[in-house]
Structure formats: structure tokens, C-alpha cells
């Protein structure tokens, strides 16, 4: 019995230590971005079900630079109810890209963006139809 508890103690301690390191979903997402992609940033998104679906709920700003090709990769945790979507707006609040095509209802798992205007952009994330979900958005540069 004593051995069992000691083993369990070490097991829990191990889980705690691994919890301090990087998020496995983010790590998986970084690695899925492709060989020619160089990691820049990640965003961890965890949202409950939305009351209304008019606006994407998770917002973050990021500077994007001219003459750079960025890749935005969206990954979902297994228990997510909907796919993670991304919409980027410029400083004039104009939509520059969206991973969700409203006409077809299709969601793209990644978007390559050839940036020709340097500036601070707003990244807006949510899950399809304001569903509850957990996901990661990874920004990389394409060489």
C-alpha cells in the first residue's frame, strides 16, 4: 500500500512538472505549421458558448510587416464543439482575412498571408457559431 502511494506521489509530481512546461496543444500546433514555417507567436483560446455570435470574442493585437509571408495555423482541442476561426482587421477596422468563408460555410485550418502593409493588426478568434471550445492559433513566417 505504501509503495502504491509513493508511486502515486511521484506520478502526481510528474504531472505537475509537465504542467509547468509548454501547452501540448500549442506544441502540436507549432509542429503542424510545416517545415518551411518559422514560429513567431501563439495564442491560446479557451471560450464558453457565446450568448450572441455577432462578434468574435478573443482579440489580440500584433504587428505585421511588409514583405513578409505569414502563416496562421488554427488547432482545436479534441473536446472542442466547433472549429477555431480567425479574422484579422487592420487599424481602420477593415477585414483583411478570415479563415471562415461565410458563403460556403467552409473553415480553413491555415491561412498564408502575404503582407504588403506594415502596421498593427487585430487578430480576432472564436469558435464556429460561438460554440464552446479550446484551441491554439500559431503565427509563423514562411521562408
Amino acid at each position, binding site marked *: *500500500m*505504501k509503495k502504491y*502511494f*509513493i508511486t*502515486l*506521489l511521484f506520478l*502526481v*509530481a510528474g*504531472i*505537475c512538472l509537465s*504542467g*509547468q*512546461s*509548454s*501547452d501540448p496543444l*500549442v*506544441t502540436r500546433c*507549432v*509542429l503542424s*505549421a510545416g*517545415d518551411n*514555417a*518559422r*514560429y*513567431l*507567436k*501563439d495564442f*491560446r483560446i*479557451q471560450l464558453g458558448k457565446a450568448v450572441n455570435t455577432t462578434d468574435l470574442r478573443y482579440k*489580440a*493585437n*500584433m*504587428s505585421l*510587416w*511588409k*514583405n*513578409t509571408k505569414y502563416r496562421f495555423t488554427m488547432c482545436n482541442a479534441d473536446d472542442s464543439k466547433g472549429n477555431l476561426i480567425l479574422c484579422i482587421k*487592420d487599424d*481602420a477596422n*477593415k477585414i*483583411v*482575412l478570415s*479563415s471562415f468563408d461565410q458563403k460556403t460555410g467552409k473553415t*480553413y*485550418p*491555415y*491561412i*498564408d*498571408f*502575404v*503582407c*504588403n*502593409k*506594415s*502596421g*498593427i493588426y487585430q487578430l480576432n478568434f472564436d469558435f464556429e457559431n460561438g460554440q464552446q471550445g479550446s484551441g491554439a492559433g500559431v503565427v509563423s*513566417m514562411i*521562408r
Partner: protein
Amino acid sequence: MKGRLFFILIVLVLACLSCRNSSRKAGEFVFPEADSVPVGEAEKLSAEAIADISKNITSPVEIANLLQVMEVPFSPEYIASSIDANRQNTNFDKALALGILGADLGYLNMYEKTGSSINILSAIRKLAEGIRVGQFFDFETIKRLSLNKSNLDSLLFLSIDSYTQIDKYLRDNDRGHLSALMIIGVWIEGQYLATQVMKQYPDPMLRDRIGEQKIILNDLILLATPYCNRDSEFISLCRNLQEMKTRYRDIRITYTLGEPVSVEKDGGLVITQTETSKVEMTDEQLAAIIEVSKDIRNKLIVNN
């Protein structure tokens, strides 16, 4: 005995759970009208706004990527090798040096000069431990990845992620001044790298990138402003940033309108932006920026 072990187990589980962080137009760009944000106002900046600003700062990895696109060869002369981690006495010096060396690490990693990065990694470790954030830097894994050169992306991810975690931890623990210093250090070294390369290898893309730093310079100053009267070191740093801003004041960034073009490819979407930004900067203005960037950076590492 069984009861005691069970009690320890429960305490450990609770401690573990409590330790875990639940998260983690056509026109022209001009500086905001006021030359600087009043200290009182800047102190009111929300945690989210500060987090956003810290994310906006150009990654040295992006600068290094541009240099590679330009086929600029690697040069160890751009590295702040004179920084001696053992001689950084104050937390101000340690945090700033941590930022400067972080930018150098990004430059070395992008050029896969990973063998050379071991010395810098050791210095980073010492500096991070000096301001009690060493726990966020997985030195052994980063060192192993550096030595075997097998997975550059994992190396970049771990290095950048460590800095992101340090930044967040410092801000969450009322040590935002150290986080601001680290970010300013990263930017100053990236700016030094870009401007020094520009002197040797003039290129229109790099020239634009240097001019475009006007876009985030104000945010950087905003980040430092709450601490500008903290002590003589901060007073001097804030003065340097204002001097940099003066050099950027007359540089114009203009925009032309256009609609993005999208194409479906390999299951993803490729979007090409047709809107463009243009930097108008004279040779004299560029020379002044190169000069002030070098002066500021060298002043910061001179006490080593």
C-alpha cells in the same frame, strides 16, 4: 502512515492545480498629438493593453529572417558579446541585458549558429536567475536542441516561449518595470542589428523596415513611461527613447488602398494584400537613426 501519505498527495494535487496558469485606408501614420503620455495616464493602462504592446514589438527573428532573404551573411560583430552576466549589478541592468541577449539568441538561431549560442545561453541563464525567473527557461532542452541542430522550429519555439512566459510572469507579479526593460532591450538590439546591417548592405526592404519602426516606437515609449521617474537609470533610458522618437518624427509612412486577393491552395487559403505602405525617409534621416540606434545600444552595454 497511509493517512499522512494521502494528505501529502491531496496537498500536492491542490498545490499543482493552484500553480497552473489558466491562460496565457489611404492615409498617413503620425505619432499621437501629445509628445508623451502623462505618467498618470500611462499608469492606468490596462494589463491587456500592456500585454498587447509587448506582443507588438518586432521579433528579432523577423529581422533576422529579412536579413536572410537579403542574403546578408552572418556576422558575430553584431552580437553584444561584451555583456558579462556576472557584472550586471542591478535588476535594471539584468533585465535589459536579458532582452538584448534574447535578440542576439534569435539572430544566432535563425542563422543556425547554434554552437555559438551556448555562451549566450549561459549568460541568459545567469541573468534570468538573477531576477528570479530562471524557472521559465528550459536551458537544458534549449542547449540540447542548439547542439544537435535537428529542429530549428522547436528551438525557436522554446526560446521565444520562454521569453513570453518570463514577460507574463513579471507583469503578473507587479514587476512590470523589468518586463518593460526586457522588451525594450529586445527592440533596441533588433534595431541595432537592422541599422548596422543597413550601413554595410543597403537594401530598400531593410530601409523600409527601419523606417516602419515609427509605428511601434510610441508603444514602446508608452510601456516605459510609468517608470520614467523611478530612478536615474530609467530617467536616462526614457531620455534615450525620446531622442530616438525625435529622429523618427519627420519620417512619413503613407498607405494606398486595395482589396485582398485570395486563392485556395492545398486545403488552406493564400491571401495577398494589395494595400501597401510606403516609407518616405531621406538619407540624412536614415543616417541619424543609424547613429542614434548605435549610441543608445552601446551606452547600454558599455558598463560591461
